[in-house]
């Protein structure tokens, strides 16, 4: 057991922290909520130049050759800053291609992702609203040298800026993953008004033709790929939550030191101190269970149970941390002017993404052999 970050990891974190502190300030986050694109192409370019999009790709595909644990450090810092943009979706798709793609697909997509020239997003769940195989109704029918896709995907992140979608579709009894050009005829995108004002969309597929070459992995064996995307998404969301929860804790302690009532800072009252102690305990627990799962995944160790534990725990605990933070802040925290609402709204989105606590607890139960 060793809880120390390597020097390289510390450097990455420090660099990410100062990038976020400098650029991804709350004014930017607010501006991007109203922005049509939802992110700054200028910052996107800078992040690509830092090598972040290709962080986990081998150097042969234009990447940095780092591990998933390092990527989780970036997610954590982005969560801390409420960093908007398609980084999460794009890296998730990139890793799926790295895992399951043909050599040709890797060569085609990974260097362009790493260069910041290609944005991708996952199109997984549907009106059924579940991260299950049964929830996939979008149909892919073989036709000529390709497939024709018909159906609807929901909650597709960054659909407005994506160049390609990673689409889970039903082929016969199984599921197949397709890499679909977002500009394909028959695709229509309708943006959704979401709690986090992020860029999620309904993406309708009407007779969309996809060449065979764009099947990711084997036909009918896409569920394994999708499960891994869900797992990486879940642990990535945990990392975002860890960063955000730590920031919310810091904001709350700071406020309790400066807000004076009854002639004393409210942070000197035991009622408030106990709130803070509970928050800190929840935040530390979130860190360790997330680091454990992310590290196991990074090392290629079995980690299905730990990932689900992390997501179940972080989903529930962050909600408690957020509501307690609001309780301590009182009315000021309830205003749009205050940054706490940015975290609260994104907290709910993170809880629901890639499986909520109940979903993951069912997976844990299966892993426990019950």
């Amino acid at each position, binding site marked *: *057991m*060793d*809880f*120390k*970050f*390597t020097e390289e*990891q510390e450097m990455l974190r420090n660099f990410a922290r100062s990038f976020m502190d400098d650029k991804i300030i709350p004014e930017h986050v607010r501006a991007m909520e109203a922005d049509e694109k939802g992110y700054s192409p200028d910052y996107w370019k800078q992040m690509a130049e830092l090598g972040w999009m290709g962080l986990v790709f081998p150097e042969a595909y234009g990447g940095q050759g780092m591990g998933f*644990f390092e990527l989780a450090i970036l997610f954590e810092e982005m969560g801390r800053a409420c960093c908007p943009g398609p980084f999460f979706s794009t890296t998730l798709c990139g890793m799926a291609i790295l895992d399951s793609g043909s050599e040709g697909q890797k060569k085609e997509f990974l260097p362009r992702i790493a260069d910041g020239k290609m944005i991708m997003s996952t199109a997984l769940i549907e009106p059924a609203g579940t991260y299950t195989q049964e929830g996939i109704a979008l149909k892919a029918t073989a036709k000529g040298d390709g497939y024709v896709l018909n159906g609807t995907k929901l909650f597709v992140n960054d659909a407005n800026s994506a160049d390609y979608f990673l689409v889970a579709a039903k082929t016969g009894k199984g599921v197949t993953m397709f890499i679909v050009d977002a500009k394909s005829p028959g695709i229509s995108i309708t943006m959704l008004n979401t709690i986090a004002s992020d860029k999620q969309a309904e993406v309708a597929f009407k007779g969309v033709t996809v060449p065979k070459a764009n099947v990711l992995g084997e036909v009918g064996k896409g569920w394994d790929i999708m499960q891994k995307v869900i797992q990486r998404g879940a642990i990535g969301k945990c990392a975002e939550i860890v960063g955000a929860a730590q920031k919310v804790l810091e904001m709350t*302690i700071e406020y*309790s*030191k400066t807000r004076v009532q009854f002639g*004393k*800072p409210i*942070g*000197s*009252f*035991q009622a*408030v*101190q*106990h709130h*803070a*102690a*509970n928050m*800190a*305990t929840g935040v*530390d*627990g979130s860190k*360790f*269970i997330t*680091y*454990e799962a992310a*590290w*196991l995944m990074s090392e290629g*160790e079995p980690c299905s149970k*730990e990932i*689900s*534990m992390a997501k*179940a*725990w972080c989903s529930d605990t962050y909600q408690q941390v957020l509501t307690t933070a609001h309780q301590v802040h009182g009315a000021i925290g309830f205003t749009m002017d205050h940054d706490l609402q940015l975290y609260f709204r994104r907290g709910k989105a993170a809880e629901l993404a890639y499986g909520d606590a*109940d979903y*993951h*607890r*069912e997976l*844990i*139960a299966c892993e*426990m*052999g*019950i």
Partner: protein
Amino acid sequence: MNFKFSKEEEAFRQEIRDFIKKEVPSDFIWADVDTQYREEGTEEIRKFAEEMRKKLAAKGWLGMSFPKEYGGQGKPLIYDYILAEEMNYHKVPGRDLYGVSIVGPTILRLGTEEQKKRYLGEIARGEVVWSEGMSEADAGSDLASLKTKAVLDGNEWVINGEKIWSSGAHVADRYLLFVRTDPAAPPHKGISCLLVDLNNASGINMKTDQHMDGLWAFNIVSFQDARVPKDVVFGGENNGFKVILETLNFERPFSGLCVSYAKRVLDDMVQYCRETKRDGKPLAENQIIRQKLADCATRLEVGRMMSYHVVWMQSLGLPTPKESNMIKLYGIESTKKVYDTAMQILGPYAQLNEQSKWAPLRGEVNYLYMRAIGLMSAGGSLEIMRNTIAGAGLRMPKA
């Protein structure tokens, strides 16, 4: 970062499991390492606990993290923790938590060369059991207000007063006693710590009290002109409050160990839910029960990681003002949650103790559920943990 144990650590864990398999009878049914304080069969259990202690010592497993010159092996603290985890999980008595994990490390930090040689050696050899004398009738959370006093008379301290909630003092050989030695000084600056030899002391009387879970562990320890040698003062005269803080700093992380008891209960409950049908269906197929068991497993895994983190910090010699209190707070609360959940799943059977033929899991859940109430105040109340996390850990303003 590394979330795996080293090969050597894994091998050590396996060696402990093999040892337990060999040394512990298969019909061994006690609910936890404290069952030696039960009313019935006490003598027999206590004898077994003592035998186990000697065997652990013979293996060289007591005080493994003590330096070699004091009878230990100079191993990282995680070895002590692994042993404690396995002993707890398998419910085997014989590892004296106070001596090995609390008093020993404190003496190592604050003791004189002579004290280290004497006390660490006898702990490592499994010769002694330790107990603590902290709380008094009017000094609980506000420990600095303790009144039991010691006055120097020639080469001896003369002690008068009364300690309460001294767990296991009636069977202990050594006693970590906190007394007032300078009544004129501010409360926390007039306390000293004495290392009392209970086998060679006069003027000490004990009355054992029964816990609501049935154990006879609490003691009221009265001192009437009790005399102990002058040189048993530990950590410096009137410096006892620092000793208290050090002691608690070591004690609290090990209270996180309760997650390893609870893990055993959870594993037993999983088995029970697989095998037990209610209304024609195994409990394990009930969605609500699946959710609850998964939630318990998650809580305990978080606790396990928090425990390893604080042990890792302490093994590097880092101060743990936040982490020690946090794992105590979290460990107890998550353990309690697991027992509460287990009781709910057992339904009406949860009421039965081990004397009933109808009692599921030998009535252990019933016992541990009540036992956990004691943990909420043992070693400091959960409110004091929160105060300390906020004050020393998060540096919030003083009340």
